[in-house]
């Protein structure tokens, strides 16, 4: 794991959605570009590429992060999850949150959706009860189509099992 001598290329071994990948990458390669261009998983979208929009959000070792603000080299040895990991493998069905987005028209162009889904996937719904807390949680993801109302509705619906009926519209 230790790299004592500064180097322009780094050997990385990164698990993405349960599959191990080994590559020799330029030190400056961003995790977002590694996921899209090196591994070929293009469900992760790049909006602003400087940490404002949240479209590129992925999960690294359980935490939601901006993949445009990390180097692939920093993720060596880590477990990464992307939007491709959400729906059950080998079926046409969606994850409950994806289904709730579909049912509530919580996307229009869909560019930001993967980022929203990964932020939501990373947290324990029990820590984010009530509409106000959901809005706070989603404040790090920008959507330019929906006006957010339908996204919050989708989350409220998908998490109603955790939050109980009637409790989700507090705040």
């Amino acid at each position: 794991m230790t790299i004592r001598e500064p180097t322009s290329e780094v050997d990385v071994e990164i698990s993405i959605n349960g599959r191990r990948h080994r590559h020799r990458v330029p030190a400056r390669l961003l995790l977002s570009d590694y996921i899209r261009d090196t591994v070929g998983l293009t469900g992760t979208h790049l909006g602003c590429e400087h940490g404002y929009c949240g479209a590129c959000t992925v999960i690294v070792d359980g935490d939601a992060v901006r993949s445009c603000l990390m180097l692939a080299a920093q993720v060596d040895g880590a477990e990464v999850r992307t939007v491709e990991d959400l729906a059950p493998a080998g079926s046409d069905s969606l994850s409950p949150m994806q289904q709730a987005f579909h049912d509530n028209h919580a996307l229009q162009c869909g560019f930001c959706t993967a980022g929203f889904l990964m932020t939501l996937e990373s947290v324990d719904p029990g820590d984010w009860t009530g509409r106000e807390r959901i809005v706070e949680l989603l404040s790090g993801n920008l959507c330019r189509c929906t006006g957010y109302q339908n996204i919050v509705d989708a989350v409220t619906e998908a998490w109603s099992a955790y939050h109980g009926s009637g409790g989700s519209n507090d705040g």
Partner: protein
Amino acid sequence: MKPAPFDYCRPSTVAEAVEALNSTESSRVLAGGQSLIPAMNFRLTDVSVLVDIGHVEGLDTVACDPGGVTVGAAATQTQVLDDDGVAGVVGGLRAALRHVGHLQIRNRGTVCGSLAHADPAAELPALAVASGAVIAVSGPDGERRVDAGDFFIGPFWTALEDGELITEVRFPAPPPGSVTIVDEISRRAGDFAVAGLVATVQADGGAVRSASLVGFGLGGVPTRLESAEAAIGGWAADHPAEPLAEAVMADTADAFDDIHATSWYRSEAVAALTVRAARSALAAGEAS
């Protein structure tokens, strides 16, 4: 957007990190990278060797004792925010971190990195100054400790010399019975503050006894509101707000004036935040 090419290393000890930092002139420490990587993506900063301290032994710790909280250089803001011990000892840390970025930023961003970055609009440098934090620094000449009050020199400019890195910061516990309030005016949730205030207030018998008041987003470094600290002693909720507000306005007369807000607006905003903080501290004192 990509950063320009650079060399990368991942030391496992502070000594190795210092050695790598001193191997070239334009070396930088990579901790959370939530400010450094965007600056590199924009090509605003020139880095030839990037020293990733994410795997340096012993730097990712958050340690609480009755006297204060010590945060290692690789400990993330989320780690500090989620630590059950922190809020009981240094309540200001949780109060400040709630305003810092978004979940995804706090999951990577570090407390020490925010101090090293020294953004004039950031909460943590102001908290460090208000609470008398001490910053531990390692460099080629060994270790030294710098009081937060001496650490911030100008916008994005600290007492860190070339080849030095922060190893930890110690936030001492505030006086018993005091309450720390971090409040700010910002245009969007999670964005940098237009202007803000860290106030540690001691009250008894329904009046403020004393307070440590430090503003941010006002000048190049956290701004101690000295005349307001003098004016606030003895202030009670039924006293007129004007003398206190005027003292803050005098302390902040040369606040930043830019596209986001005029100098007068920032000054007025921090005056209002100060009165609000004094009122909340007194209300909290009555409730407890």
